């Protein structure tokens, strides 16, 4: 269990860290929690503080009831995995090398049979068997991201923190990545906290959303409670229009064609009420039913 208590983080010398003030959250187990917010809202900083990459200045982060600052880094690494965007890859290692590094917290670089098994499992789970001997700079962005997730899997931690895992991925790979993250939660029982830039990915895949603004938690809750104009307009300083698809909220935020989208939205709405529509779908439905019978 991870609890964040009264975390405040003032501006530090490293320029890419934003401030945080008075943050209190409890990470929900076995769920995807998405952190959303404008640039500079403090999402990444909060993630760094929660994983103790950036030690908290005031307040506490409790990991299973113990202050993370009092736990050895090597012990934290067995419970919490944190994947930051790795832009700069000048190093030439193979996928297998990378996944094996994931076992480092457990074996310190000397892999035993059990470690090798975990590595093989992670590689199979992420469908990377054919690529194990490829160098990281020889594969596509989506494959590379999968390789990093495989490494995290080999690290075998109950908690997984991902900082903008969809950066540099196109739509196909973004969806694939979020599906994988979903499977980590549903199949493997992991707890995932993820910073997402695209609010719709958060709306579609997260079980819990934390909206941040100016270093504070503005609102947290289920997607339907957070993805509302009342919350998002101030958080992103922008006008949102929210619609629904399959019971999940979807944000429309393209300013210039808001009117057009409005009309379109109404049109879709009409289809959702069969009694307003023609009889044809009903007839069709009956036909299908009789065939089944």
């Amino acid at each position, binding site marked *: 269990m991870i609890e964040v208590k009264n975390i405040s983080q003032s501006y530090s010398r490293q320029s890419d860290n934003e401030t945080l003030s008075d943050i209190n959250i409890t990470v929900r187990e076995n769920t995807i929690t998405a952190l959303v917010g404008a640039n500079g809202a403090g999402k990444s900083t909060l993630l760094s503080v929660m994983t103790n990459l950036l030690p908290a200045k005031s307040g506490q982060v409790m990991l299973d009831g113990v202050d993370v600052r009092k736990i050895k880094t090597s012990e934290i690494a067995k419970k919490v995995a944190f994947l930051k965007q*790795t832009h700069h890859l000048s*190093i030439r*290692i193979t996928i297998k090398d990378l996944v094996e*590094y994931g076992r480092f917290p457990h074996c310190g670089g000397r892999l035993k049979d059990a470690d090798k098994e975990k590595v093989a499992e992670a590689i199979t789970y992420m469908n990377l068997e054919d690529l194990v001997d490829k160098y990281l700079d020889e594969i596509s962005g989506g494959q590379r991201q999968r390789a990093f997730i495989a490494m995290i899997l080999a690290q075998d931690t109950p908690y997984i923190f991902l900082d903008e895992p969809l950066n540099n991925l196109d739509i196909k790979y973004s969806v694939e990545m979020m599906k994988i993250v979903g499977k980590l939660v549903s199949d493997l029982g992991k707890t995932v906290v993820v910073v997402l830039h695209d609010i719709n990915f958060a709306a579609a895949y997260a079980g819990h959303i934390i909206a941040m603004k100016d270093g504070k938690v503005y609102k947290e809750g289920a997607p339907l409670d957070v993805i509302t104009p009342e919350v998002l307009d101030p958080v992103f300083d922008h006008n949102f229009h929210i619609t629904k698809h399959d019971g999940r909220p979807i944000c429309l935020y393209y300013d210039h064609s808001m009117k057009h989208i409005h009309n379109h939205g109404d049109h879709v709405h009409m289809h959702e009420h069969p009694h307003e529509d023609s009889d044809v779908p009903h007839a069709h439905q009956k036909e299908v039913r009789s065939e089944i019978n």
Partner: protein
Amino acid sequence: MSLLRRQWKRITILVAFVILTLLSLEVGSMADVSLSSFIHGDELSRFIFIHSRLPRTLAVILAAAGLSVAGLIMQSISRNKFMSPTTAGTTDAAALGLLISFVFLGHTSGYVQAVFSFVFALVGTLLFTAVINRLKIREVVYIPLLGLMYGGVIAAISTALSFQTETQTVLNQFNLGTFARLGNFELVYVVVIPLIISVAYATKFSIIGLGADFAKNLGLNYNRVVGLGLIIIALISASTFVAVGPLPFIGLIIPNMTTSIFGDNLKRSIIDLMLFGACFVLFCDIASRLMIFPFEMNISVTISVVGGVIFMIYLLRGMYGGKKTRSAAAKSRG
């Protein structure tokens, strides 16, 4: 498949290494002293082998292997393929330390000189790394260029000091890399210690190369490993410098050439790296001994010519053609 190719590459390097080692033992100004006369138990041959040829070949191998490893660790720590003891002021700082020990203590034992060199190399490198980290330069090729300038400044201080104390000839002597100077050869054996440590820490140095956050995520004590790396670099640079003088570019081009063949997983490639470095320097050493036989050229000259050309190729590729460095830099900006 790739495993088989790997093995072949490794065998090729090993064979080349054995051949070059034997050749290195065979070549010398006394032409009638050879391996066969040594095996036949000729008294003079034995003397020359034990006191000249063998130490020289060993020194070449150890200095080359050491500097290659130092270069790779430096590149891993800085995550910059253009870093090396030559391009971060380490070598120049070692020279300054050596000169200072000479100015204040006169002729002392090689070990005292090495301690001075080591301290200066360590401080010099630390200073440069600290400044570079603060500047946050995105374009990777600027860092070694800055490093060369920084080295130039340190070298200028050495020159000024030698003018003041009228020790220019001593400084010139220091700055000539040569395996023909027998004086402090045994110092090069010190390199064995950092080499063993770096083999033991190979995986940790590779992980460091993936970034501080990445290393911390895996529970690695980042600062401690970086600190150890810098000590290893300074120890290798200082002891090779005092023993044989500067061998420019080795720490830069050998790791680059090796990792493009064997990859960056140090645990697997560190032995290949040492062997490859040794082959390169053995080759340059033999060439400089044969070119104007029975005299010999200075090894710094040979290495500078060959290594300089290779360095230029890498630098230009990094600036213009290099797909990888280029796109990586572009991404880190965006």
